């Protein structure tokens, strides 16, 4: 380890020109010293030796200068060039062929040969040539094939080959270094990438955790509704705090342990299964659960009332919505049951109904007495009344009757609201019911100067409560009369039978504004045409009429044009088409 550090410290990894020059310089110093003190060394040319010494100093100095700046390093080959010349001079000056310093050229040769590029082999070898052939270059006669000459040539060949080898070796070395560098670079990049991935993962993770916490927070906050999730067989896999509160059972006790149809009344599930008409003995493994989720399974949300059964036997009326849970590919993987406890709502509705019922009956009691005694007064044979008194009595009776009717209407609308009113349905022809209503309205029509017509195209048989249906028709006819000025006409028509019976009551009256047509059937609503023309009424009639139509399985419709007239239509399902 320490050696490696030393190695790098001294710059051997990327040697500076000075470092490369150092061996040459040291050797030269030794050479000069040897030349000066060794007895066997001849100095044939003092000038040459001195100039070589100077050259080396210059070269070394240059090397030092070039080492200071990386950008000057391309000039560094000047140094070995000078070295070559110095070596040539030294050899020349120390006996030439017999000089011991010829092999010095190896050092600058190595410098050259180690450079990247084959051309430097040539330069190196050239240097060796210069050194070996100095005397010949400087003019000495050439004895070709002479011993000196041959030696020079052979040396150059040897040096040339050495140069090749060094060049190749250094090239291999460089390639290896390149490879290692590339590898290191790749590793560095991969590390950076891994780090980046890790950071991204951490970010995603944080996001996921935050989302999970958000949803967990939302889930835990639903404490007033029960939310139960199940798989496709009804095994519970999600149980929210609301469910825990409603049933008094913990998540641990329910999840993966019990089925959602356990929590329902068996009788209700069976009723629904019957409603859905599962054939007996069909391959429905769990008809109760299947009935519960049937609508949801087919893709529609199902909202209806059920009764939950607690372990302690208590019944909880709930409004339950069942929806299917789908995976990413749209396959049903389970169901979700959201239940809202209706106990309070039921209780409130029940109290309201009770209250309205009580009030209505309380109002009827004194009215009965008023009407009863007014009648006694009128019909008392012992004390006959004057015409005037009879007229007053008439007014009192008429108003008492009106009050009675109003109480009846109020009670009826309350029953409509709570969905409880009785129909005494019998199969009977429709025509007579209409005829009766028309006949009973004739006096009022005559008094108002309105012509009243009955137009029955074909009679048909329906299942109806004649009293209630008659009440509905009375209502429509009396409305028509009320809203038509004197001289107008009211027509009661019956058409059908396919697909349904249609009763129409049309008038030539003041009409209803187009934007009020859809509000017409709401409680206590009075059209502006009614209030404008001071037509008496409270606004309950059409509510009752529509409720009666709907209770018979039909519905109501209206078209109108202000100032022209109105047509109310009631559709009713029929039992049999026309009777002859």
């Amino acid at each position: 380890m320490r050696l490696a550090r030393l190695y790098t410290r001294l710059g051997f990894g990327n040697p500076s020109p000075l470092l490369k020059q150092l061996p040459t310089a040291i050797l030269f110093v030794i050479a000069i010293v040897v030349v000066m003190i060794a007895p066997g060394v001849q100095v044939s040319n003092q000038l040459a030796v001195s100039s070589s010494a100077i050259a080396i100093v210059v070269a070394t100095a240059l090397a030092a200068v070039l080492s200071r700046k990386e950008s000057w390093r391309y000039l560094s080959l000047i140094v070995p060039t000078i070295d070559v010349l110095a070596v040539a001079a030294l050899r020349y000056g120390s006996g030439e062929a017999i000089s011991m310093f010829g092999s010095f050229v190896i050092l600058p040769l190595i410098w050259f040969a180690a450079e990247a590029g084959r051309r430097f082999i040539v330069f190196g070898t050239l240097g060796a040539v210069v050194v070996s052939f100095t005397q010949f270059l400087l003019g000495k006669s050439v004895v070709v094939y002479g011993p000196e000459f041959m030696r020079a040539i052979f040396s150059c060949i040897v040096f040339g080959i050495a140069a090749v080898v060094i060049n190749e070796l250094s090239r291999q070395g460089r390639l290896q270094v390149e490879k290692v560098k590339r590898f290191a670079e790749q590793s560095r990049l991969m590390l950076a990438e891994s780090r980046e991935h890790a950071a991204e993962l951490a970010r995603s993770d944080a996001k996921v955790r935050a989302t999970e916490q958000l949803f967990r927070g939302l889930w835990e906050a639903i404490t007033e509704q029960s939310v139960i999730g199940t798989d496709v067989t009804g095994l519970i896999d999600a149980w929210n705090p609301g469910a825990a509160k409603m049933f008094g059972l913990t998540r641990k006790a329910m999840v993966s342990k019990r089925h959602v149809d356990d929590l329902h009344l068996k009788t209700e599930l069976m009723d629904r299964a019957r409603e859905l008409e599962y054939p007996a003995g069909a391959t429905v493994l769990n008809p109760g659960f299947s009935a519960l989720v049937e609508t949801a399974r087919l893709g529609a949300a199902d909202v209806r009332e059920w009764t939950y059964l607690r372990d302690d036997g208590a019944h909880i009326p709930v409004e339950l919505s069942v929806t299917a849970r789908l995976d990413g590919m749209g396959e049903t993987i389970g169901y979700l049951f959201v239940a809202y406890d209706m106990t309070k709502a039921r209780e409130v509705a029940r109290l309201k109904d009770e209250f309205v019922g009580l009030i209505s009956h309380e109002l009827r009691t004194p009215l009965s007495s008023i009407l009863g005694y007014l009648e006694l007064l009128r019909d008392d044979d012992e004390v006959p009344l004057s015409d005037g008194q009879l007229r007053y009595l008439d007014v009192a009776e008429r108003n008492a009757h009106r009050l009675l009717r109003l109480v009846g209407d109020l009670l009826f609308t309350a029953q409509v609201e709570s969905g409880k009113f009785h129909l005494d349905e019998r199969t009977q022809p429709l025509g007579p019911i209409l005829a009766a209503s028309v006949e009973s309205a004739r006096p009022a029509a005559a008094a108002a100067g309105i012509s009243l017509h009955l137009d029955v195209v074909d009679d048909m048989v329906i299942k109806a409560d004649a009293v209630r249906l008659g009440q509905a028709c009375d209502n429509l006819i009396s409305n028509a009369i009320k809203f038509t000025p004197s001289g107008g006409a009211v027509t009661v028509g019956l058409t059908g039978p396919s697909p349904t019976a249609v009763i129409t009551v049309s008038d030539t009256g003041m009409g209803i504004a187009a934007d009020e047509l859809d509000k017409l059937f709401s409680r206590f609503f009075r059209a502006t045409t009614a209030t404008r023309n001071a037509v008496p009424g409270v606004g309950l009639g059409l509510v009752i009429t529509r409720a009666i139509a709907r209770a018979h399985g039909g519905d109501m419709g209206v078209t109108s044009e202000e100032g022209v007239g109105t047509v109310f239509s009631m559709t009713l399902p029929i039992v049999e088409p026309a009777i002859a």
Partner: protein
Amino acid sequence: MSRTGIIHDRVRVDRVRVLIVEDSQDQRELLRRHFEMAGCDVVAAESAESAIYAYESGNLHLDLAVVDLLLPGMDGWELSGRLQLDRPDCPVVISSVLDQADYPPTGAAMPKPISRANVLAVLSAYVPRWIAP
């Protein structure tokens, strides 16, 4: 009128006897008036208990019973059942402010407010031996 609130009429077998059970004095007197005008003997009681006492203790024959539903003590539903057991030949007419749909199934109804015409109709429909005066 005795202190217990039970009213007795002198028994005359040829006249139609009607039992009226109604807790409101106004209505009770109204009904009495109408039935008496129609020529009947009226036994009127303001509660089911006093009515039962009246016809049981006097072993009275009844041609018609008019029963209100909302009574103190035993209600009209229970009373009509009792009457059908005690006096099976006596038709029980229910007269109440409540909806006819809630009436007990005695087969005869005369919902309030009643009129003279209602009373005469009931008599002719349910008391064959009654003759209009």
